[in-house]
Protein backbone atom coordinates (compact mmCIF):
# COMPACT_ATOMS: atom_id res chain seq x y z
CA UNK A 1 0.00 0.00 0.00
CA UNK A 2 1.30 3.44 -0.78
CA UNK A 3 0.44 6.49 1.24
CA UNK A 4 0.23 9.96 -0.20
CA UNK A 5 2.15 11.89 2.45
CA UNK A 6 1.02 15.27 1.25
CA UNK A 7 -2.62 14.31 1.52
CA UNK A 8 -2.16 13.06 5.07
CA UNK A 9 -0.06 15.99 6.24
CA UNK A 10 -2.70 18.63 5.75
CA UNK A 11 -5.63 18.07 8.04
CA UNK A 12 -8.93 19.73 7.30
CA UNK A 13 -9.40 22.93 9.31
CA UNK A 14 -12.15 21.41 11.41
CA UNK A 15 -9.74 18.80 12.83
CA UNK A 16 -7.00 21.25 13.69
CA UNK A 17 -6.73 22.38 17.29
CA UNK A 18 -8.15 25.85 17.92
CA UNK A 19 -5.57 28.48 18.85
CA UNK A 20 -6.97 29.02 22.34
CA UNK A 21 -5.77 25.52 23.27
CA UNK A 22 -2.15 26.56 22.76
CA UNK A 23 -2.23 29.08 25.59
CA UNK A 24 -3.72 26.53 27.96
CA UNK A 25 -1.05 23.99 26.99
CA UNK A 26 1.63 26.03 28.79
CA UNK A 27 0.21 24.90 32.10
CA UNK A 28 0.30 21.08 31.96
CA UNK A 29 -3.06 19.51 32.57
CA UNK A 30 -1.53 16.27 33.78
CA UNK A 31 0.86 17.41 36.48
CA UNK A 32 2.10 14.25 38.24
CA UNK A 33 4.98 15.79 40.20
CA UNK A 34 3.19 15.10 43.47
CA UNK A 35 2.41 11.48 42.53
CA UNK A 36 3.92 10.14 45.76
CA UNK A 37 1.28 11.91 47.83
CA UNK A 38 -1.56 10.39 45.83
CA UNK A 39 -4.03 7.91 47.21
CA UNK A 40 -2.20 4.66 48.03
CA UNK A 41 -1.04 5.23 51.60
CA UNK A 42 -4.24 7.04 52.60
CA UNK A 43 -6.40 3.97 52.29
CA UNK A 44 -6.83 1.07 54.64
CA UNK A 45 -4.58 -1.92 53.91
CA UNK A 46 -6.17 -4.31 51.42
CA UNK A 47 -9.18 -2.01 50.89
CA UNK A 48 -10.73 -3.18 54.16
CA UNK A 49 -13.59 -1.00 55.42
CA UNK A 50 -13.04 -0.39 59.12
CA UNK A 51 -16.06 1.77 59.88
CA UNK A 52 -19.13 -0.24 60.87
CA UNK A 53 -22.53 0.80 59.49
CA UNK A 54 -21.00 2.98 56.81
CA UNK A 55 -23.70 2.05 54.26
CA UNK A 56 -25.74 5.07 55.47
CA UNK A 57 -23.26 7.20 53.51
CA UNK A 58 -24.28 5.47 50.32
CA UNK A 59 -27.39 7.42 49.42
CA UNK A 60 -29.41 5.15 47.20
CA UNK A 61 -32.48 7.44 47.12
CA UNK A 62 -31.39 8.87 43.80
CA UNK A 63 -32.22 5.59 42.04
CA UNK A 64 -35.93 5.96 42.83
CA UNK A 65 -38.68 6.50 40.25
CA UNK A 66 -41.60 5.52 42.50
CA UNK A 67 -42.04 6.65 46.11
CA UNK A 68 -44.03 4.83 48.82
CA UNK A 69 -46.71 6.92 50.49
CA UNK A 70 -48.13 5.71 53.82
CA UNK A 71 -51.76 6.11 54.80
CA UNK A 72 -51.49 6.44 58.59
CA UNK A 73 -55.16 5.60 59.09
CA UNK A 74 -54.89 2.21 57.38
CA UNK A 75 -51.58 1.18 59.03
CA UNK A 76 -52.20 -1.29 61.86
CA UNK A 77 -48.57 -1.43 63.00
CA UNK A 78 -47.85 -5.02 61.90
CA UNK A 79 -44.27 -3.90 61.01
CA UNK A 80 -44.03 -6.19 57.96
CA UNK A 81 -42.86 -3.26 55.82
CA UNK A 82 -40.12 -2.53 58.36
CA UNK A 83 -38.79 -6.07 58.28
CA UNK A 84 -39.04 -6.49 54.50
CA UNK A 85 -37.47 -3.17 53.52
CA UNK A 86 -34.01 -3.99 52.06
CA UNK A 87 -32.71 -0.51 52.88
CA UNK A 88 -34.05 -0.06 56.43
CA UNK A 89 -35.92 3.01 55.16
CA UNK A 90 -39.22 2.69 57.04
CA UNK A 91 -39.41 5.28 59.81
CA UNK A 92 -41.32 3.98 62.82
CA UNK A 93 -42.86 5.87 65.74
CA UNK A 94 -44.94 4.32 68.51
CA UNK A 95 -45.14 1.00 66.67
CA UNK A 96 -46.46 2.47 63.44
CA UNK A 97 -44.89 3.28 60.07
CA UNK A 98 -44.93 7.06 59.89
CA UNK A 99 -42.63 7.87 57.01
CA UNK A 100 -39.87 6.91 54.59
CA UNK A 101 -36.16 7.68 54.70
CA UNK A 102 -36.01 9.17 51.21
CA UNK A 103 -32.21 9.37 51.18
CA UNK A 104 -32.03 5.59 51.08
CA UNK A 105 -35.43 4.33 49.76
CA UNK A 106 -34.79 2.95 46.25
CA UNK A 107 -38.53 2.81 45.53
CA UNK A 108 -38.49 -0.97 45.07
CA UNK A 109 -42.11 -1.31 46.23
CA UNK A 110 -41.62 -4.34 48.45
CA UNK A 111 -43.28 -2.51 51.37
CA UNK A 112 -46.38 -1.75 49.29
CA UNK A 113 -46.50 -5.35 48.04
CA UNK A 114 -46.23 -6.85 51.51
CA UNK A 115 -48.53 -4.45 53.42
CA UNK A 116 -51.59 -6.56 54.43
CA UNK A 117 -53.82 -3.50 54.91
CA UNK A 118 -52.88 -1.72 51.65
CA UNK A 119 -51.66 1.22 53.70
CA UNK A 120 -48.71 1.88 51.34
CA UNK A 121 -49.15 3.06 47.77
CA UNK A 122 -46.37 3.61 45.22
CA UNK A 123 -46.68 7.07 43.63
CA UNK A 124 -44.61 8.71 40.92
CA UNK A 125 -41.68 10.46 42.55
CA UNK A 126 -41.64 14.10 41.59
CA UNK A 127 -38.09 15.42 41.67
CA UNK A 128 -37.14 19.04 41.52
Amino acid at each position, binding site marked *: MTVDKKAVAKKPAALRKPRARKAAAKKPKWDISDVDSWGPERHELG*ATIIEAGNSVYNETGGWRSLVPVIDGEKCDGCMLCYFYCPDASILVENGKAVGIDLEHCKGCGICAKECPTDAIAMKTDEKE
Partner: protein
Amino acid sequence: MAIVESEILAVTGNEAVAEAMRQIDPDVVCAYPITPQTEVVQLYAQMVADGKVTSEFVTVESEHSAMSAVIGSAAGGARTMTATSSQGFALMWEVLYIAASYRLPIVMTTVNRALSGPINIHCDHSDTMGGRDTGWIQLYGENHQEAYDNCIQAIRIAEHMDVRTPAMQMYDGYVISGAIGPLQMLTDEQVRQFIGPYRAINPMLDTRHPVTVGPFDGLHGWYFEHKVAQNRAMDRALTVIQDVADEYAELSGREYGLLDPYRLDDAEIAIVVVGSTAGTTRSTVDKLRARGVKAGMVRVRAFRPFPHAAYAKALEHVKVVGVMDRADSFGAQGGPVFLEIRAALYDSDPRPQILPFLYGLGGRDIFPDNIEQAFAVLQKAAQSKKRTSTERRYLNLRKD
Protein backbone atom coordinates in the same frame (compact mmCIF):
# COMPACT_ATOMS: atom_id res chain seq x y z
CA MET B 1 22.31 -14.81 70.10
CA ALA B 2 24.81 -17.65 70.11
CA ILE B 3 24.68 -20.12 67.27
CA VAL B 4 23.77 -23.55 68.57
CA GLU B 5 25.48 -26.25 66.52
CA SER B 6 22.73 -28.77 65.82
CA GLU B 7 23.09 -32.31 64.57
CA ILE B 8 22.79 -32.97 60.87
CA LEU B 9 19.61 -34.86 59.97
CA ALA B 10 18.94 -36.82 56.79
CA VAL B 11 15.47 -35.83 55.58
CA THR B 12 13.45 -35.29 52.42
CA GLY B 13 12.76 -31.68 51.43
CA ASN B 14 9.13 -32.17 52.36
CA GLU B 15 10.09 -33.47 55.81
CA ALA B 16 12.29 -30.41 56.28
CA VAL B 17 9.36 -28.10 55.50
CA ALA B 18 6.90 -30.07 57.65
CA GLU B 19 9.38 -29.69 60.54
CA ALA B 20 9.63 -25.94 59.88
CA MET B 21 5.84 -25.72 59.93
CA ARG B 22 5.73 -27.70 63.18
CA GLN B 23 8.11 -25.20 64.77
CA ILE B 24 6.14 -22.25 63.37
CA ASP B 25 2.91 -23.89 64.63
CA PRO B 26 0.54 -21.58 62.70
CA ASP B 27 -3.01 -21.05 63.97
CA VAL B 28 -4.56 -22.57 60.87
CA VAL B 29 -3.40 -24.80 58.00
CA CYS B 30 -5.79 -25.42 55.09
CA ALA B 31 -4.32 -27.67 52.44
CA TYR B 32 -5.07 -30.25 49.79
CA PRO B 33 -2.53 -32.92 48.90
CA ILE B 34 -0.93 -33.04 45.45
CA THR B 35 2.18 -34.73 44.11
CA PRO B 36 4.98 -33.88 44.92
CA GLN B 37 3.82 -31.76 47.88
CA THR B 38 1.66 -34.53 49.43
CA GLU B 39 4.19 -35.50 52.08
CA VAL B 40 4.12 -32.00 53.61
CA VAL B 41 0.36 -32.12 54.12
CA GLN B 42 0.41 -35.76 55.23
CA LEU B 43 3.15 -35.20 57.81
CA TYR B 44 1.49 -32.04 59.08
CA ALA B 45 -1.91 -33.72 59.41
CA GLN B 46 -0.15 -36.44 61.45
CA MET B 47 1.45 -33.82 63.70
CA VAL B 48 -1.98 -32.27 64.28
CA ALA B 49 -3.46 -35.70 65.06
CA ASP B 50 -0.58 -36.48 67.44
CA GLY B 51 -1.01 -33.18 69.26
CA LYS B 52 2.50 -31.98 68.35
CA VAL B 53 1.06 -28.68 67.11
CA THR B 54 -1.89 -26.54 68.11
CA SER B 55 -2.95 -25.68 64.53
CA GLU B 56 -6.49 -26.07 63.31
CA PHE B 57 -6.14 -28.28 60.23
CA VAL B 58 -8.84 -27.70 57.63
CA THR B 59 -9.26 -30.45 55.06
CA VAL B 60 -10.72 -29.05 51.86
CA GLU B 61 -12.01 -30.49 48.61
CA SER B 62 -9.73 -28.65 46.20
CA GLU B 63 -6.92 -26.12 46.02
CA HIS B 64 -9.37 -23.38 45.08
CA SER B 65 -11.07 -24.10 48.39
CA ALA B 66 -7.73 -24.40 50.16
CA MET B 67 -6.67 -20.90 49.15
CA SER B 68 -10.17 -19.55 49.82
CA ALA B 69 -10.18 -21.08 53.31
CA VAL B 70 -6.68 -19.73 53.92
CA ILE B 71 -7.85 -16.23 52.97
CA GLY B 72 -10.89 -16.52 55.27
CA SER B 73 -8.69 -17.68 58.09
CA ALA B 74 -6.08 -14.96 57.57
CA ALA B 75 -8.77 -12.27 57.26
CA GLY B 76 -10.23 -13.65 60.48
CA GLY B 77 -6.95 -12.84 62.18
CA ALA B 78 -5.03 -16.13 62.25
CA ARG B 79 -1.46 -16.94 61.20
CA THR B 80 -2.20 -19.23 58.29
CA MET B 81 -0.17 -21.51 56.05
CA THR B 82 -0.73 -23.88 53.16
CA ALA B 83 1.21 -25.86 50.57
CA THR B 84 0.66 -26.93 46.97
CA SER B 85 2.20 -27.87 43.61
CA SER B 86 1.56 -27.59 39.88
CA GLN B 87 -2.12 -28.10 38.95
CA GLY B 88 -3.13 -27.30 42.51
CA PHE B 89 -1.31 -23.99 42.23
CA ALA B 90 -3.06 -23.37 38.91
CA LEU B 91 -6.44 -24.12 40.48
CA MET B 92 -5.74 -21.48 43.15
CA TRP B 93 -5.16 -18.89 40.46
CA GLU B 94 -7.94 -16.34 40.87
CA VAL B 95 -7.80 -16.56 44.64
CA LEU B 96 -4.03 -15.95 44.74
CA TYR B 97 -4.69 -12.41 43.50
CA ILE B 98 -7.35 -11.96 46.20
CA ALA B 99 -4.93 -13.02 48.95
CA ALA B 100 -2.34 -10.52 47.72
CA SER B 101 -4.78 -7.65 47.25
CA TYR B 102 -6.26 -8.16 50.75
CA ARG B 103 -2.66 -7.89 51.99
CA LEU B 104 -2.91 -11.05 54.07
CA PRO B 105 0.49 -12.37 55.22
CA ILE B 106 -0.14 -15.99 54.27
CA VAL B 107 2.87 -18.27 53.75
CA MET B 108 2.61 -21.02 51.17
CA THR B 109 5.12 -23.69 50.29
CA THR B 110 4.96 -24.54 46.58
CA VAL B 111 6.89 -27.61 45.49
CA ASN B 112 7.74 -26.91 41.85
CA ARG B 113 6.26 -29.30 39.30
CA ALA B 114 5.44 -29.06 35.60
CA LEU B 115 1.99 -27.96 34.47
CA SER B 116 0.02 -30.30 32.20
CA GLY B 117 -0.08 -31.24 29.40
CA PRO B 118 1.00 -33.77 28.49
CA ILE B 119 0.37 -34.84 32.07
CA ASN B 120 3.68 -34.69 33.87
CA ILE B 121 4.44 -34.92 37.57
CA HIS B 122 8.13 -34.02 37.46
CA CYS B 123 9.99 -30.85 38.32
CA ASP B 124 10.06 -27.65 36.38
CA HIS B 125 9.17 -24.09 37.34
CA SER B 126 6.19 -23.51 35.05
CA ASP B 127 3.70 -23.49 37.94
CA THR B 128 5.09 -20.67 40.07
CA MET B 129 6.75 -18.77 37.20
CA GLY B 130 3.25 -18.41 35.75
CA GLY B 131 2.17 -16.98 39.11
CA ARG B 132 4.86 -14.32 39.20
CA ASP B 133 2.38 -11.48 38.72
CA THR B 134 -0.14 -12.59 41.34
CA GLY B 135 1.29 -10.11 43.84
CA TRP B 136 2.89 -12.77 46.05
CA ILE B 137 6.47 -12.62 47.24
CA GLN B 138 8.44 -15.48 45.65
CA LEU B 139 11.51 -17.06 47.22
CA TYR B 140 13.18 -19.93 45.37
CA GLY B 141 15.23 -22.29 47.51
CA GLU B 142 18.11 -24.47 46.35
CA ASN B 143 18.19 -27.41 48.72
CA HIS B 144 16.66 -29.07 51.79
CA GLN B 145 18.30 -26.65 54.19
CA GLU B 146 17.08 -23.60 52.31
CA ALA B 147 13.54 -24.99 51.99
CA TYR B 148 13.48 -25.15 55.80
CA ASP B 149 15.19 -21.77 56.27
CA ASN B 150 13.03 -19.98 53.67
CA CYS B 151 9.84 -21.34 55.23
CA ILE B 152 10.71 -19.75 58.57
CA GLN B 153 12.01 -16.50 57.06
CA ALA B 154 8.92 -16.16 54.83
CA ILE B 155 6.76 -15.78 57.95
CA ARG B 156 8.76 -12.77 59.08
CA ILE B 157 8.89 -11.24 55.59
CA ALA B 158 5.16 -11.60 54.86
CA GLU B 159 4.12 -10.36 58.31
CA HIS B 160 6.50 -7.38 58.36
CA MET B 161 4.49 -4.17 58.74
CA ASP B 162 6.26 -2.61 55.72
CA VAL B 163 5.27 -5.56 53.56
CA ARG B 164 2.05 -7.30 54.69
CA THR B 165 1.95 -9.37 51.52
CA PRO B 166 1.59 -13.14 51.15
CA ALA B 167 4.78 -15.06 50.41
CA MET B 168 5.40 -18.34 48.64
CA GLN B 169 8.58 -20.32 49.04
CA MET B 170 9.57 -22.87 46.44
CA TYR B 171 11.89 -25.82 46.02
CA ASP B 172 12.29 -28.36 43.25
CA GLY B 173 9.88 -31.29 43.14
CA TYR B 174 11.49 -34.74 43.65
CA VAL B 175 15.07 -33.43 43.36
CA ILE B 176 14.57 -31.76 46.75
CA SER B 177 11.06 -32.69 47.86
CA GLY B 178 11.49 -36.47 47.67
CA ALA B 179 15.25 -37.01 47.80
CA ILE B 180 17.13 -37.26 51.08
CA GLY B 181 19.42 -34.39 51.97
CA PRO B 182 21.11 -32.84 55.00
CA LEU B 183 19.25 -30.53 57.38
CA GLN B 184 20.32 -28.60 60.45
CA MET B 185 17.38 -27.34 62.47
CA LEU B 186 17.02 -24.47 64.88
CA THR B 187 15.54 -25.33 68.24
CA ASP B 188 11.78 -24.94 68.68
CA GLU B 189 12.40 -22.08 71.08
CA GLN B 190 14.71 -20.26 68.63
CA VAL B 191 12.07 -20.43 65.91
CA ARG B 192 9.33 -19.32 68.29
CA GLN B 193 11.38 -16.28 69.30
CA PHE B 194 12.49 -15.52 65.75
CA ILE B 195 9.00 -15.39 64.27
CA GLY B 196 7.41 -13.78 67.33
CA PRO B 197 3.69 -13.53 68.04
CA TYR B 198 1.29 -12.89 65.17
CA ARG B 199 -0.15 -9.39 64.78
CA ALA B 200 -3.40 -9.27 62.85
CA ILE B 201 -4.53 -6.04 61.15
CA ASN B 202 -8.29 -5.36 61.18
CA PRO B 203 -9.21 -8.99 61.87
CA MET B 204 -12.79 -9.97 61.11
CA LEU B 205 -13.08 -11.92 64.37
CA ASP B 206 -12.54 -8.77 66.46
CA THR B 207 -16.27 -8.28 67.03
CA ARG B 208 -15.75 -5.04 68.92
CA HIS B 209 -14.38 -3.49 65.73
CA PRO B 210 -16.47 -4.89 62.89
CA VAL B 211 -14.88 -4.59 59.43
CA THR B 212 -15.74 -5.41 55.84
CA VAL B 213 -13.02 -7.33 53.99
CA GLY B 214 -12.97 -7.45 50.20
CA PRO B 215 -15.71 -4.90 49.44
CA PHE B 216 -16.71 -3.69 45.98
CA ASP B 217 -14.48 -0.75 45.20
CA GLY B 218 -17.32 1.31 43.75
CA LEU B 219 -17.75 2.42 40.17
CA HIS B 220 -15.04 5.05 40.48
CA GLY B 221 -13.03 3.74 43.41
CA TRP B 222 -9.38 3.32 44.38
CA TYR B 223 -8.49 0.04 42.65
CA PHE B 224 -5.56 1.71 40.86
CA GLU B 225 -4.22 3.22 44.10
CA HIS B 226 -4.45 -0.12 45.89
CA LYS B 227 -2.38 -1.73 43.11
CA VAL B 228 0.23 1.01 43.48
CA ALA B 229 0.26 0.31 47.23
CA GLN B 230 0.89 -3.39 46.53
CA ASN B 231 3.83 -2.53 44.32
CA ARG B 232 5.31 -0.17 46.92
CA ALA B 233 5.08 -2.98 49.48
CA MET B 234 7.04 -5.15 47.03
CA ASP B 235 9.72 -2.47 46.76
CA ARG B 236 10.00 -2.34 50.56
CA ALA B 237 10.13 -6.14 50.69
CA LEU B 238 13.59 -6.03 49.05
CA THR B 239 15.01 -4.44 52.20
CA VAL B 240 12.95 -6.63 54.50
CA ILE B 241 14.04 -9.90 52.82
CA GLN B 242 17.70 -8.94 53.33
CA ASP B 243 17.15 -7.74 56.92
CA VAL B 244 15.33 -10.94 57.86
CA ALA B 245 18.08 -13.02 56.21
CA ASP B 246 20.76 -11.14 58.17
CA GLU B 247 18.93 -11.65 61.44
CA TYR B 248 18.47 -15.32 60.59
CA ALA B 249 22.19 -15.65 59.86
CA GLU B 250 23.01 -14.51 63.38
CA LEU B 251 20.83 -17.32 64.65
CA SER B 252 21.81 -20.09 62.27
CA GLY B 253 25.19 -19.15 60.82
CA ARG B 254 23.66 -19.61 57.35
CA GLU B 255 23.77 -16.51 55.17
CA TYR B 256 21.25 -15.66 52.48
CA GLY B 257 20.80 -12.71 50.16
CA LEU B 258 18.38 -11.51 47.50
CA LEU B 259 20.58 -13.38 45.05
CA ASP B 260 23.35 -15.90 45.52
CA PRO B 261 26.51 -15.18 43.48
CA TYR B 262 29.34 -17.69 43.09
CA ARG B 263 32.88 -16.89 41.82
CA LEU B 264 31.45 -13.89 40.04
CA ASP B 265 33.84 -11.06 40.95
CA ASP B 266 36.26 -11.61 38.05
CA ALA B 267 33.98 -13.73 35.85
CA GLU B 268 33.85 -13.13 32.10
CA ILE B 269 31.01 -15.55 31.50
CA ALA B 270 28.27 -16.42 33.97
CA ILE B 271 25.09 -18.44 34.27
CA VAL B 272 21.94 -17.37 36.11
CA VAL B 273 19.95 -20.30 37.44
CA VAL B 274 17.02 -21.03 39.79
CA GLY B 275 16.66 -23.90 42.25
CA SER B 276 18.50 -27.17 42.71
CA THR B 277 20.43 -26.96 39.41
CA ALA B 278 22.58 -24.31 41.11
CA GLY B 279 24.52 -27.10 42.82
CA THR B 280 25.40 -28.75 39.51
CA THR B 281 26.26 -25.37 38.02
CA ARG B 282 28.57 -24.52 40.92
CA SER B 283 30.58 -27.72 40.44
CA THR B 284 30.76 -26.99 36.69
CA VAL B 285 32.06 -23.50 37.45
CA ASP B 286 34.79 -25.03 39.64
CA LYS B 287 35.72 -27.45 36.88
CA LEU B 288 36.00 -24.65 34.31
CA ARG B 289 37.93 -22.44 36.73
CA ALA B 290 40.46 -25.28 37.16
CA ARG B 291 40.93 -25.09 33.39
CA GLY B 292 41.48 -21.34 33.58
CA VAL B 293 38.03 -20.32 32.26
CA LYS B 294 36.69 -17.29 34.11
CA ALA B 295 33.24 -18.73 34.77
CA GLY B 296 30.78 -17.63 37.45
CA MET B 297 27.21 -18.14 38.55
CA VAL B 298 24.26 -16.40 40.20
CA ARG B 299 21.41 -18.28 41.80
CA VAL B 300 18.05 -16.54 41.94
CA ARG B 301 16.57 -16.45 45.45
CA ALA B 302 14.04 -13.60 45.46
CA PHE B 303 12.18 -13.52 42.15
CA ARG B 304 9.31 -11.32 43.39
CA PRO B 305 10.26 -8.68 44.25
CA PHE B 306 12.98 -8.92 41.59
CA PRO B 307 16.14 -7.13 42.76
CA HIS B 308 17.01 -5.74 39.32
CA ALA B 309 19.52 -3.18 40.63
CA ALA B 310 21.40 -5.91 42.50
CA TYR B 311 21.58 -8.03 39.35
CA ALA B 312 22.82 -5.08 37.30
CA LYS B 313 25.56 -4.50 39.86
CA ALA B 314 26.46 -8.19 40.11
CA LEU B 315 26.58 -8.88 36.37
CA GLU B 316 27.52 -5.65 34.58
CA HIS B 317 31.23 -6.57 34.39
CA VAL B 318 30.47 -9.97 32.83
CA LYS B 319 30.87 -10.24 29.04
CA VAL B 320 28.19 -12.86 28.36
CA VAL B 321 25.45 -14.04 30.70
CA GLY B 322 23.51 -17.24 30.05
CA VAL B 323 20.13 -17.45 31.75
CA MET B 324 18.83 -20.94 32.41
CA ASP B 325 15.04 -21.08 32.57
CA ARG B 326 13.13 -24.12 33.75
CA ALA B 327 9.86 -22.67 32.41
CA ASP B 328 9.11 -21.10 29.06
CA SER B 329 7.11 -18.00 28.26
CA PHE B 330 5.68 -19.08 24.95
CA GLY B 331 6.05 -16.48 22.26
CA ALA B 332 8.24 -14.22 24.40
CA GLN B 333 11.90 -13.56 23.68
CA GLY B 334 12.90 -16.15 26.28
CA GLY B 335 11.93 -17.66 29.62
CA PRO B 336 10.74 -15.49 32.53
CA VAL B 337 14.13 -15.26 34.27
CA PHE B 338 15.84 -14.38 30.97
CA LEU B 339 13.40 -11.52 30.40
CA GLU B 340 14.03 -10.12 33.88
CA ILE B 341 17.82 -10.36 33.65
CA ARG B 342 17.90 -8.84 30.17
CA ALA B 343 15.74 -5.94 31.33
CA ALA B 344 17.84 -5.47 34.49
CA LEU B 345 21.04 -5.12 32.44
CA TYR B 346 19.67 -2.87 29.72
CA ASP B 347 21.09 0.30 31.30
CA SER B 348 24.55 -1.18 31.91
CA ASP B 349 27.45 0.26 29.93
CA PRO B 350 29.05 -1.75 28.43
CA ARG B 351 25.99 -3.94 28.22
CA PRO B 352 26.66 -7.68 28.62
CA GLN B 353 25.16 -10.07 26.11
CA ILE B 354 22.35 -12.11 27.62
CA LEU B 355 21.51 -15.48 26.07
CA PRO B 356 18.48 -17.65 26.86
CA PHE B 357 18.74 -21.35 27.71
CA LEU B 358 15.84 -23.70 28.37
CA TYR B 359 16.37 -26.86 30.40
CA GLY B 360 14.68 -29.45 32.57
CA LEU B 361 11.10 -28.99 31.38
CA GLY B 362 8.89 -31.77 32.70
CA GLY B 363 11.77 -33.08 34.80
CA ARG B 364 14.23 -33.62 31.94
CA ASP B 365 17.59 -34.44 33.51
CA ILE B 366 20.24 -31.76 33.53
CA PHE B 367 23.78 -33.17 33.56
CA PRO B 368 27.04 -31.34 34.26
CA ASP B 369 27.84 -31.89 30.56
CA ASN B 370 24.74 -29.89 29.58
CA ILE B 371 25.85 -26.99 31.74
CA GLU B 372 29.33 -27.20 30.20
CA GLN B 373 27.66 -27.00 26.78
CA ALA B 374 25.92 -23.82 27.90
CA PHE B 375 29.21 -22.36 29.16
CA ALA B 376 30.82 -23.30 25.83
CA VAL B 377 28.20 -21.22 24.02
CA LEU B 378 28.93 -18.30 26.36
CA GLN B 379 32.68 -18.67 25.84
CA LYS B 380 32.30 -18.64 22.07
CA ALA B 381 30.04 -15.60 22.29
CA ALA B 382 32.57 -13.81 24.53
CA GLN B 383 35.35 -14.38 21.97
CA SER B 384 33.23 -13.43 18.98
CA LYS B 385 33.38 -9.85 17.70
CA LYS B 386 29.76 -10.00 16.56
CA ARG B 387 26.80 -10.17 18.92
CA THR B 388 25.44 -13.68 19.24
CA SER B 389 21.88 -14.60 18.31
CA THR B 390 19.44 -14.63 21.22
CA GLU B 391 17.44 -17.59 19.99
CA ARG B 392 16.51 -20.11 22.69
CA ARG B 393 19.09 -22.86 23.26
CA TYR B 394 17.70 -26.09 24.62
CA LEU B 395 19.82 -28.24 26.93
CA ASN B 396 19.44 -32.03 26.75
CA LEU B 397 16.63 -32.01 24.19
CA ARG B 398 15.88 -35.55 22.95
CA LYS B 399 16.83 -36.44 19.40
CA ASP B 400 14.41 -39.35 18.99
